[in-house]
């Protein structure tokens, strides 16, 4: 995971200068293990991140859910409000529907 470390180093550098207000890196992970890395500012709303992610992977934003530590992320949540830390992971889940087993 040398890459990850590089990334961290990089972030730490930034963290030194901007610290609590500086951007952080977050990892958006699907249940199959695919990851997309974002750098976001601490007051960026999660809805924005979700939109960017959906767009990137070509999904309808309505069909994906972002979870942070098992909690659904709200539109107005931000890394700051969630007290996210650099390198944190967001789980992206796909809408589930059910009516019966066919």
């Amino acid at each position, binding site marked *: 995971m040398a890459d990850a470390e590089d990334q961290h180093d990089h972030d730490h550098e930034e963290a030194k200068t901007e610290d609590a207000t500086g951007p952080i890196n977050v990892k958006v992970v699907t249940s199959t293990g695919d990851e997309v890395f974002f750098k976001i500012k601490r007051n960026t709303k999660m809805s924005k991140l979700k939109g960017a992610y959906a767009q990137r992977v070509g999904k309808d934003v309505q069909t994906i859910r972002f979870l942070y530590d098992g*909690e659904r992320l709200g539109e107005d949540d931000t890394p700051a409000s969630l007290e996210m830390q650099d390198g944190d992971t967001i789980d992206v889940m796909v809408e589930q529907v059910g009516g019966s087993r066919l």
Partner: protein
Amino acid sequence: MTRSSTRNEEMYSMFRRKSPSPDPNELMLVWPLDSRTGAVHITHGDFKRLEPQEFLNDTLIEFGLSEAHPEMARDVHMFNTFFYKKISNKDFDAGYESVRKWTSKVDIFAKKYIIVPINEHLHWYLAIICNPQGILRPPPVKELLVPRKSSRLSTGRQAVAPLEVSTPISEVSSGPADEAEVETLATPLRTQVEDVHMEDAVIHISESGGSGDTAPVADLHAADMDVDSPPTSLLDPTREISLELGDGPPPRHAVTQLSPSPSRGRLSEASSPLEPVHGEDDETLIFTFDSLGGAHKPVTKILSRYLQAEAKDKKGIVETREGVGKKARAPTQHNFCDCGLFVIHFVEKFMDKPEQFIQSFLMDQKKGEKKPGAYWDELWHKEEVNEKRDLLKGEINSLAEQWKKKRSQAQGEDRKGKEKEASIIPSGEETAPGSKSDEESDGVEIVGEKKKTASPRAARRKKGDRRSSKAGPDDTPDTSQEIEEVKPRRKDATGPTRGLAAADVVKMRPRRSINGNPFLRV
């Protein structure tokens, strides 16, 4: 639009099946209203899933569940609909790791009930864990477990006299004996209540080898529940059974001396000290409720393992026992679309009278009931399920009204600053009046990507394509412009961070649609 006309519309949509089709992506309600993290966001698109015959989605399920008896929150932990998907990972450790932090702020063992809504194969069902702390005790004596197969094979008879104890049992058990389960589960006694045959074996043995306290009685109750043709002679006077067995071969502790017997191989891990078998009251029960009647034994196993892993991780307790799986016999659905409503209804009714429900299940099982007893009508109120869609609609509508008010108030206060902030976009360099941090408020930057699975044979989209499309639910005009791509730092980030191959996207899609079902999104 005047206030009254708004209200009229709401009333209209409340009572009409077809509301004037608003934008399905438009947010309708954030629940709970305080909009904290974890809130469910219901859109008009979600709402439409309450139409007859539509399949409910995770959002509606979580809304319905969270609404059921909020006053019980202290005693109940409700996992979201994604928990089981995570934990049921083929690699259990990876699955556990992925949810390990979910409970960092809650002690699930302090709860009385844990609710686990489950979605599999386009079907909703439910598990309720009762008394999770029951697993925190050291495991019972594992010698007591005799794999059914071995007793079937009558190795016992030949091998060691005391094993004869198991012989009559295997005769009693009626039915296919060797479900692989028995071995794989390797459960200590009394885990698979569902599985009568095994249960029989286990119980008798435990009676003879075990503790000599009152526990076997409880065990028996548990054991009987699913017997197709209950061995009545064994059933009622549970004490007699132990007598029967006791009369036969060996004195109680003889079985433990059996160690070298052929059947021991499977029980090899069993080396814990002999200790009293606990009564059922202490047991962790894992009920599964399925409106299609499925038993879902793997669920019991996985949740049991989860509890054990959780005990180890959060409490440092390694010596634990397993949860006892029970299938709750409850009314079933008669259509192909309502399982989600049954799940919500289950939880509501269960929470009304949890103890009574549990007792009723146990009683059903004791009696070997195949169908819910008549007394269920009072507990269950099945007729309400039919109204559930309309009830949920009504609730969502009236809450939505409150939420809108609240939001417009909040926005009113917020607006001045926010609107300007929203207009910043392009480079994020605009001078934003709101606060000094506003200049950064919109940054979302993709810095890399890592595909675990397929290698992207990337038909890359052009940067420009991506930018021209709209970026999500935001009300800001074109958020995509804020997204700056940066050269990927990850070496395995496949071709840079431009678009994503269509092939890669595919695996993100929700489950495939069912033939001809127009209600599913693909």
